[in-house]
């Protein structure tokens, strides 16, 4: 079918929206009528050097979008669609694409590169297009520079798109050879060099074997280091990006090069342009990240062969690294505190200094203190700010013993500076530093308090005063108060030092929320967050004052719901505020609901509060929904069986939440609230269970719902079963097969990465909690025999989990508990089955002798229940 696509593609980019829409409609029709022909036309357009660049570029983009999508389920559809296309069509399209990378039009080449990578991403896992990489590599040597550039770019995109295990080592070697040659001094074309450097960045994940070979690694490292000295800025930047990636991917191979890299990075930080200097600093931040992880994991004592040891690169570089970073602190930008998107060398340097302090601890202190002492009182604000920032940065990492004497001296100075320094930037950093002091050096775990009877009054007065300052400073002051309050969270029901100031603090925070400019620098959010923390950490003494907050916050929420005729911008702000107010009420409900006397008084507001929450659901903001839902969950927990009276009205919003696939957080929270309601209402939830179960089962079968919601849904089955007992009977035929197939899928995860394993374990935990709830729900009923057919599978699941040896502690605890529940509910009927299972012997014994208190307790339960079951 010959169709003139060029004009349509050009029209689709027209300024006139009627023309544009018409063209878009044409394209859509074309695609729907004949997909192969549509794709072929696009590929033809892209590869045709006689066509305008604009139409070629759009043709390529549409092709790319026909192969990949962000949403997982859509992506899978597109992959299937491509795979099922006629082979001859695919061959023609691929030929067009490969032809395009020799084109003289850079935009066409670049677009084709990306499309090739997408096709490779689909076909290589299916062992199709095996000749692709060979074909590309044959381009490398003889052709003009622009083709070499495009070929390298394509290889880079392919490496980004495809998993390393799909490309065999021989081809990896060839790719790396081509890439490194492209970066080499023998290559004279800078565009080729740049493309090669970017390609290396993506290919690093493929180079595992090559980095284990000393000669090959030396060569790669030499070429990368040389590239950092290129006269071309973008090449230097790309080369440093490679170094950053190497520092995290191949940390354990860095030792021979670290001295050279230090010299290179130091020079770049001092002399090079900012984009390059930022990457140079990032190299050290990334090394810090690695060492912090290693030291955290092993507690400083390295043992075992497969583990990565800590090489203490940061500690060794410390005497030169710290002065280098301190120097960057003086290069602040004038308004960086007001600019959300700001990122400059001073910020990067300070952040890196903070990471260095966390990596090396006490050793950083003597290297930083002289800088602070020298600059803290200088007339130039840059020096005062840099000194303060340096101090704030090192407050996490070094020991309290080392820091507390310094903080005791600095505290008073900082309080004065926060009141009197003429510069906003200095005040912002000062308030932030006070917050860091309270975050890390104030709390019941520390022996010598930095906040005492004598200075608490002054600290609070200063912070409250500072909350009237410009928004960015006031926001930091709120933050400092947040951590001040948090330090007293263990005061429990006894007296808190904050009690005398409680009223004043709450009043000041409420005043902040009403400031005209509270929308700037997220000031309003910070004020509510601090209010929440102050409430959370309050004691019984101040419960009457917390109670007084309830009608106040409810009134505010009421007002936001009454507001009429808002612009979309105003509506968005209104929704944000509703979220904050619901969040605040949630915290108050939890606080007052946790003790009987306050709960009793507070529940008089429950009806009104519930009515307000339900009205929030009328808004279209996911955040507001989520917060209202969380608050309702807390209310259900506090109200207990009394919550039943809200169910007729609340139910439809509950269902709505369970159907909210797009905002999966809302869905997840709603699933949690179903659990709250189950425990609150027990069997009174029965009339709503048909609807809830239907929705939950739909959620599970949907491939649109974010996977993180599925484990809580399984747990929720358990909550429901426990609440309604044997009435769960009618759901067994739906729930059990789902649980079984999910169990089978989650039993084996060989070769998965850490994320996948973590997810799998949360899925296992959900499945096991479901089994546990169902088994316990049926206990003592006359219908336990309905569960017998499922018992072999449950035991098999436990056995295979045990054999896999990759459960985390939470799963072990739940799993061994399920064994007990099975024995407890099915009793002697299941006795022989249980005795045959590996779980009842080896797994149980392992759990009984573990150090983990929770696992042992569950195991003891299981042992007891089994002993009863088999002794009948």
């Amino acid at each position, binding site marked *: 079918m010959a169709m003139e696509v060029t004009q349509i593609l050009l029209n689709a980019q027209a300024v006139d929206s009627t023309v544009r829409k018409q063209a878009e409609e044409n394209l859509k029709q074309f695609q729907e009528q004949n997909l192969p022909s549509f794709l072929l036309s696009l590929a033809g357009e892209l590869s045709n050097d006689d066509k305008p660049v604009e139409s070629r570029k759009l043709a390529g983009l549409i092709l790319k979008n026909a192969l990949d999508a962000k949403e997982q389920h859509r992506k899978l559809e597109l992959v299937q669609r491509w795979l099922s296309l006629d082979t001859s069509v695919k061959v023609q399209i691929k030929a067009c694409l490969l032809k395009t990378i020799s084109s003289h039009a850079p935009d066409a080449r670049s677009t084709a590169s990306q499309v090739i990578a997408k096709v490779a991403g689909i076909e290589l896992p299916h062992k199709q297009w095996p000749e692709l990489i060979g074909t590309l590599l044959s381009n490398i040597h003889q052709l003009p520079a622009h083709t070499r550039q495009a070929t390298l770019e394509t290889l880079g995109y392919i490496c980004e798109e495809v998993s390393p295990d799909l490309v065999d080592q021989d081809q990896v070697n060839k790719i790396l050879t081509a890439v490194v040659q492209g970066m080499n001094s023998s290559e004279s074309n800078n565009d080729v060099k740049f493309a090669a450097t970017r390609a290396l960045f993506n290919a690093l994940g493929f180079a595992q074997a090559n980095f284990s070979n000393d000669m090959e690694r030396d060569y790669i490292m030499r070429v990368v280091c040389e590239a950092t000295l290129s006269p071309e800025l973008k090449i230097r930047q790309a080369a440093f990006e490679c170094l950053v990636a190497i520092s995290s991917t191949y940390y354990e191979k860095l030792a021979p090069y670290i001295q050279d890299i230090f010299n290179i990075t130091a020079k770049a930080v001092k002399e090079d342009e900012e984009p390059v200097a930022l990457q140079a600093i990032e190299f050290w*931040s990334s090394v810090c990240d690695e060492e912090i992880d290693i030291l955290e994991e092993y507690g400083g004592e390295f043992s075992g062969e497969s583990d990565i040891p800590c090489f203490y690169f940061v500690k060794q570089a410390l005497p030169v690294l710290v002065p280098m970073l301190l120097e960057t602190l003086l290069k602040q930008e004038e308004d960086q505190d007001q600019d959300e998107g700001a990122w400059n060398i001073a910020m990067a340097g300070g952040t890196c200094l903070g990471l260095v302090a966390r990596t090396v601890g006490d050793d950083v202190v003597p290297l930083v203190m002289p800088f602070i002492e020298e600059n803290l009182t200088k007339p130039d604000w840059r020096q005062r700010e840099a000194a303060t920032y340096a101090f704030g940065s090192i407050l996490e990492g070094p020991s309290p013993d080392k820091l507390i004497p310094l903080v005791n001296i600095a505290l008073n100075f900082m309080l004065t500076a926060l009141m009197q320094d003429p510069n906003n930037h200095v005040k912002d950093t000062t308030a932030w530093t006070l917050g860091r002091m309270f975050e890390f050096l104030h709390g019941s775990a520390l022996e010598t308090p930095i906040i005492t009877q004598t200075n608490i009054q002054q600290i609070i007065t200063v912070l409250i005063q500072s909350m009237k300052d410009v928004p960015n400073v006031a926001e930091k002051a709120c933050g400092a108060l947040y951590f001040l309050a948090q330090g007293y969270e263990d005061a429990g029901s006894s007296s808190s030092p904050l009690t005398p100031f409680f009223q004043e603090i709450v009043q000041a925070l409420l005043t902040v929320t009403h400031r005209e400019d509270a929308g700037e620098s997220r000031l309003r959010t910070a004020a509510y967050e601090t209010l929440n923390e102050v409430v959370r950490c309050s004691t019984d003494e101040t419960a009457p004052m917390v109670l007084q907050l309830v009608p106040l916050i409810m009134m505010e929420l009421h007002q936001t719901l009454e507001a009429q005729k808002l612009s979309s911008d105003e509506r968005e702000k209104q929704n944000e505020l509703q979220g904050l107010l619901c969040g605040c009420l949630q915290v108050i409900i939890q606080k007052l609901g946790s003790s009987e006397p306050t709960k009793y008084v507070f529940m008089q507001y429950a009806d009104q509060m519930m009515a307000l929450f339900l009205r929030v659901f009328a808004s279209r903001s996911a955040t507001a929904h989520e917060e209202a839902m*969380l608050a309702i969950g807390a209310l259900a927990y506090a109200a207990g069986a009394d919550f039943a009276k809200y169910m007729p009205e609340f139910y439809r919003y509950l269902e709505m939440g369970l159907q909210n696939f797009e905002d999966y*957080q809302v869905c997840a929270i709603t699933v*949690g609230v179903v659990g*709250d309601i189950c425990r609150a209402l027990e069997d009174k939830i029965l009339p709503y269970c048909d609807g809830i179960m239907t929705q939950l089962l739909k959620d599970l079968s949907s491939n649109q719902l974010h996977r993180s919601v599925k484990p809580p849904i399984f747990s929720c089955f358990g909550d429901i079963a426990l609440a309604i007992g044997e009435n769960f009977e009618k759901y067994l035929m739906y729930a059990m097969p789902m649980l079984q197939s999910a169990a089978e899928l989650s039993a084996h995860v060989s070769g998965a990465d850490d994320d996948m394993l973590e997810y799998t374990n949360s899925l296992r935990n959900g499945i096991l909690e479901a089994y546990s709830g169902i088994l316990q729900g049926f206990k003592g009923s006359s219908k336990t025999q309905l569960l017998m057919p499922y018992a072999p599978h449950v035991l098999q699941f436990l056995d295979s989990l045990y054999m896999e040896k990759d459960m985390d502690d939470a799963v072990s605890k739940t799993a061994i508990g399920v064994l007990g529940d099975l024995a407890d509910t099915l009793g002697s009927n299941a006795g022989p089955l249980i005795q045959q299972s590996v779980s009842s012997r080896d797994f149980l014994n392992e759990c009984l002798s573990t150090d983990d208190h929770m696992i042992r307790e569950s195991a003891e339960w299981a042992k*007891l229940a089994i002993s009863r079951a088999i002794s009948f």
Partner: protein
Amino acid sequence: MAPHDLRRPFKRPAISDQQRRRELSLQRQAQNRRDAQQHARCLASTLLYLQSPHPESTSEPEVEVEVEVELETETEPEASASEIDIRQASKLKGSQARKWFARQLMLPEWMIDVPDQLAQDWYVFARPAGKRCFVVSTNGTTVSRLRNGSRLHHFPSALPNGARNRDASGSAQSYSILDCIFHESDQTYYVVDMVCWRGYSLYECTAEFRFFWLNSKLSETGACDPPSQYHRYRFSLVPVYSCDQPGLSAAYTGETPYVKDGLLFYNKHAHYQTGNTPLALVWKDENCSQYVIDTDSKGQIPSQQQVVLELQDNGSLTTSDDPPVVFGCLDGGFMQKSGLCSGNLLRFAISNGGLSFADGKLEKADLHYLGKSNRARAFADSYSKVMFQYMARHSPIRYDDLIGSISSSIDQENKPSDVQMDD
């Protein structure tokens, strides 16, 4: 190949308060789920019924034996309303509590013949002399109750939830129940069995398991430590032996910190069951007990054995067993003349005619009426008690007989003992 964003969080707490609220909610929900689960696990498994056992259980004497017929009729109006589980029972007060706990102890029969397989299936230990009682710890306090349900002590202890100072791991409502003997001279509770632990019921567990559990759990709590402010009485384990030759000998002759009052034999496979059971046995001789032959109210051994029997509607005189064993019959005239009625507990002496047996069954007893029994008595003697006392006066089972019974199955003897309990 988009360059990665290298901006890091700057002057910001690493976590937002919204995220914190979310996480705190999830934590609360997870905790509530655990509590609900825990509640379910403890709840139904500890249901003990105050109603009569189901009819079918009478055919199986091991399953459940009702002891105190008298109490049964008394409690019926209250009990019929609901079954009382242990958690509720642990909150009962006054006479209610007395009635409930009076029915919960497992009462060993007296050993009137030596069981088969003694070495294989039984444990033995020296019974401490003293008051048999239940010790219940819950809600920050500990109460001990005697066999008739009345309260012996109310005190703080290191048992789970047994004192107010201890931060309870798990719910404060969770309760533990121990079967103990309080030994006056060293003011120590010797624990002979474990019935519930931290809310979990061990009623349906075998003795083997209960002893294992008792042995591993009790010392963890610090209950075996010397008394202190929050732990008024010391608890102590009793050494339990497998009933092979060395075990029996250790129990019989071994030194104990307490005064012995006979030996107790527990069948390893038997559950804890309320009331009389033939799967726990008591045996005594003069070497291991000061009280082999019953004394009268003045502490003297009467010249003739005395028994207490219950008078039935039809005039028959029965033991407290279920089913009851008939020892004789009063004629209606005598009953009318002495103003006796059904349910009365009557004291008799066994006269020179003694007891006669045919095919191992009691055929005839030469009883001599002495009068009504002491009012404090709650129930008649059991058959095994009468028989043991009778044998003690005529042809007692001797220690050598026990040893002999073990040796007769010597080939089984070299099994290692499963449970060794030491102080």
